[in-house]
């Protein structure tokens, strides 16, 4: 009986476990073979994902292939606030790493989020700081809840060279200013989402490469500028800022043969602004006189024809037009002389004689009133007068008032003189070759050039300081008043000075423009823009090894030699001390200031103290610019200013 009971219990337990096993097997079969959509979804969410593969942003290079803007990989610190707040040790390490109190860090974290950026695009020094503070371990790992994300960031290997032109990008590598913004579509490329299988930590481990071929890196953009020349120009601009006390200075060099802008520099007080050369306009002033002259010559006048200077005064409609200086009283003068001495009265008369229609049409032919067409953001076409003008308006138009133009428009206009009558469109893209169009004959160009040469070489020329030894320079000074925004009238204190010119007969048709806004030390172009032009043009001519066309000027040679080592000896081994000893050994004139560029502050003071007790040092590092310039005769009461900058 008992045995029978035991057997039945055993059978019952066997059946029960058998049924359980069947249930499990059935469930396993269902899950493995038939599947459950909800569980399937949960699983895919856990180990499948998409990875965004960012394209590489295209490089910006100069005309010789020198990289101006490239990409580097940087780390950004991300956190999971939910994990961090559950992990006090991690939070403490994070706060210590960032150097903020723990309470502040806690408040910064968004409790609702599982992902939050802590710091984007962290420089190497800061990462080292994290390591020193204990947040980042030596093996590169971080406390729980923190991780480093690799991102691409823009780097500018030449520092602030041409920065107003190149522009900047934001944290998401999108261009926000300058070329970065202008060419953003070309530079940014096209990213692609790839399917990925994640590992246990949620990191993409296996990435499907099927769609990788759709990834398009950004295209490169080649700027027309020459980095070496750009550097020289910017150095000259720095010196000019100090020398003139200006608000801003701008300079550009254009190759008139192909319209390529070889250098475009600017220096301003305060923040680096957008490119003034292209976006800001001004009244060109006397730099319009050669353009007016070419219009007059086209209308049948000759360069030797006369125009009366009114002995310094011309009254029109109750207003008096006078010369820049009260002592300038010209009678009858040739048209060439009118340009040489920059007579306002002569220009006014010439404009009145030509008539509004011819003057306005003539200006338009030179590209004034129309954008140069570089495509650069903010490019401005200036303000152009209507054809119906009152006599006083026409008269002032003759000497460049009553219209506005950007420096680039003026540079373009003068390219027509350099090329013998063909206007070329300026370009910032080195791969573009714009068309040229003839706007006047070679004969007229030659006549105007003759007048422009008189500006720099004539007895009464206003642009003598624009001369470059070894070359014949044709150019024109311009000094124009600017409007005071508070009074809406011309300011008596604020001027813009400019000089535009080019070497005559040189193998390379380089045109340069210099522009000085609100110079405080001297309001005349002859003392501000003209000397700057000379330095800029000299740099450009040397850079492209343009052979000289004239014998060197003796006086220039002497003053240059006075500041140089008298006999350079290539075999002498140079050491930093050598720089100081060379300065001390220079056989200069008794009171002529030596060149201390590149020396440290103490070395420079040592070299200069016998010339003046009043030496002012600005900044740290080595001397980058000095005022007065080397070779200047100094008295004991003159103040010497040195501007220092540290090494990179």
């Amino acid at each position, binding site marked *: 009986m008992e045995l029978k009971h035991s057997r039945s219990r055993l059978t019952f337990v066997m059946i029960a476990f058998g049924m359980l096993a069947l249930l499990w097997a059935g469930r396993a079969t269902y899950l493995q073979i038939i599947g459950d959509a909800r569980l399937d979804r949960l699983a895919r969410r856990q180990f499948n994902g998409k990875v965004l593969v960012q394209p*590489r942003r295209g490089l910006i290079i100069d005309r010789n292939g*020198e*990289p101006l803007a*490239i*990409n*580097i*990989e940087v780390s950004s610190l991300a956190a999971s606030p939910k994990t961090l707040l559950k992990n006090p040790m991690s939070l403490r390490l994070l706060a210590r790493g960032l150097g903020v109190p723990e309470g502040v860090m806690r408040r910064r974290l968004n409790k609702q989020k599982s992902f939050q950026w802590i710091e984007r695009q962290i420089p190497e020094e800061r990462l080292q700081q994290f390591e020193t503070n204990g947040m980042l371990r030596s093996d590169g790992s971080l406390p729980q809840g923190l991780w480093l994300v690799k991102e691409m960031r823009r*780097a500018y*290997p*030449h*520092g602030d*060279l041409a920065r107003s032109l190149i522009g900047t990008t934001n944290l998401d590598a999108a261009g926000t200013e300058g070329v970065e913004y202008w060419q953003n579509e070309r530079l940014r490329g096209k990213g692609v989402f790839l399917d990925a299988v994640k590992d246990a930590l949620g990191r993409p*481990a*296996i*990435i499907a*490469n099927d769609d990788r071929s759709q990834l398009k890196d950004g295209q490169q953009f080649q700027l027309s500028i020459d*980095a*070496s020349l750009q*550097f*020289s120009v910017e*150095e000259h601009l720095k010196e000019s800022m100090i020398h003139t006390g200006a608000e801003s200075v701008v300079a550009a060099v254009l190759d008139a043969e192909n319209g390529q802008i070889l250098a475009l520099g600017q220096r301003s007080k305060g923040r680096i602004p957008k490119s003034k050369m292209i976006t800001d306009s001004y009244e060109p002033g006397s730099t319009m006189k050669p353009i007016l002259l070419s219009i007059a010559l086209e209308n049948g006048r000759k360069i030797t024809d006369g125009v009366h200077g009114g002995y310094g005064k011309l009254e029109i409609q109750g207003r008096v037009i006078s010369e820049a200086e009260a002592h300038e009283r010209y009678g009858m003068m040739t048209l060439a002389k009118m340009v040489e001495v920059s007579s306002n009265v002569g220009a006014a008369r010439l404009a009145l004689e030509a008539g509004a229609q011819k003057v306005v049409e003539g200006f338009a032919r030179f590209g004034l009133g129309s954008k140069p067409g570089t495509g650069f953001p903010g490019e401005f076409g200036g303000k152009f007068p209507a054809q119906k003008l009152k006599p006083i308006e026409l008269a002032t138009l003759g000497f460049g008032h009553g219209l506005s133009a950007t420096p680039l428009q003026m540079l373009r206009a003068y390219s027509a003189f350099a090329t013998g009558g063909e206007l070329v469109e300026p370009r910032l893209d080195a791969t573009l070759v714009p068309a040229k169009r003839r706007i006047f004959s070679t004969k007229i160009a030659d006549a105007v050039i003759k007048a422009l040469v008189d500006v720099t070489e004539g007895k009464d020329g206003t642009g003598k300081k624009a001369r470059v*030894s*070894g070359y014949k320079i044709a150019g024109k000074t311009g000094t124009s008043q600017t409007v005071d925004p508070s009074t809406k009238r011309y300011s008596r204190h604020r001027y813009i000075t400019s000089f535009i010119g080019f070497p005559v007969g040189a193998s390379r048709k380089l045109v340069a423009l210099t522009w000085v806004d609100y110079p405080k030390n001297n309001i005349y172009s002859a003392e501000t823009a003209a000397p700057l032009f000379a330095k800029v043009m000299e740099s450009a001519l*040397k850079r492209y*090894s*343009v*052979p*000289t066309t004239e014998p*060197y000027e003796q006086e*220039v*040679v002497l003053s*240059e*030699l006075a*500041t*140089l*080592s008298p006999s*350079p000896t290539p075999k002498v081994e*140079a*050491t*930093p001390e*050598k*720089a100081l000893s*060379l300065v001390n050994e220079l056989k200069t004139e008794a009171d002529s200031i030596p*060149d201390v*560029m*590149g*020396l440290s502050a103490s070395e420079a003071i040592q070299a200069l103290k016998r010339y003046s007790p009043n030496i002012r040092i600005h900044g740290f590092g*080595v001397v980058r610019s000095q005022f007065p310039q080397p070779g200047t005769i100094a008295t004991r009461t003159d103040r010497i200013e040195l501007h220092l900058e540290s*090494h*990179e």
Partner: protein
Amino acid sequence: MRRFIPSWAIAGILILSFTTVWLRLTLVRSTYELNQSTKILQTLQLDKERMDLKVAQLRSPRRLELLARTKFALHAPAPTQVVFLRDR
């Protein structure tokens, strides 16, 4: 007793099973290797970009000018010291 499954079928099933597993493992291994190679390529590309940056910084006109003036005590040549050579 009769066999339900002939021995050649058993052998076939075994071969197919091993082949399936081997193929699967090979696929997974190859995918890992491909991903590794992609990562190595990316690392090398980044290294190249870092080197490019370094080279560009070393060639910077500002740096070269500073070196020329301070370390080598060079000056800009006077106009008469520049000789232009013409191509013949």
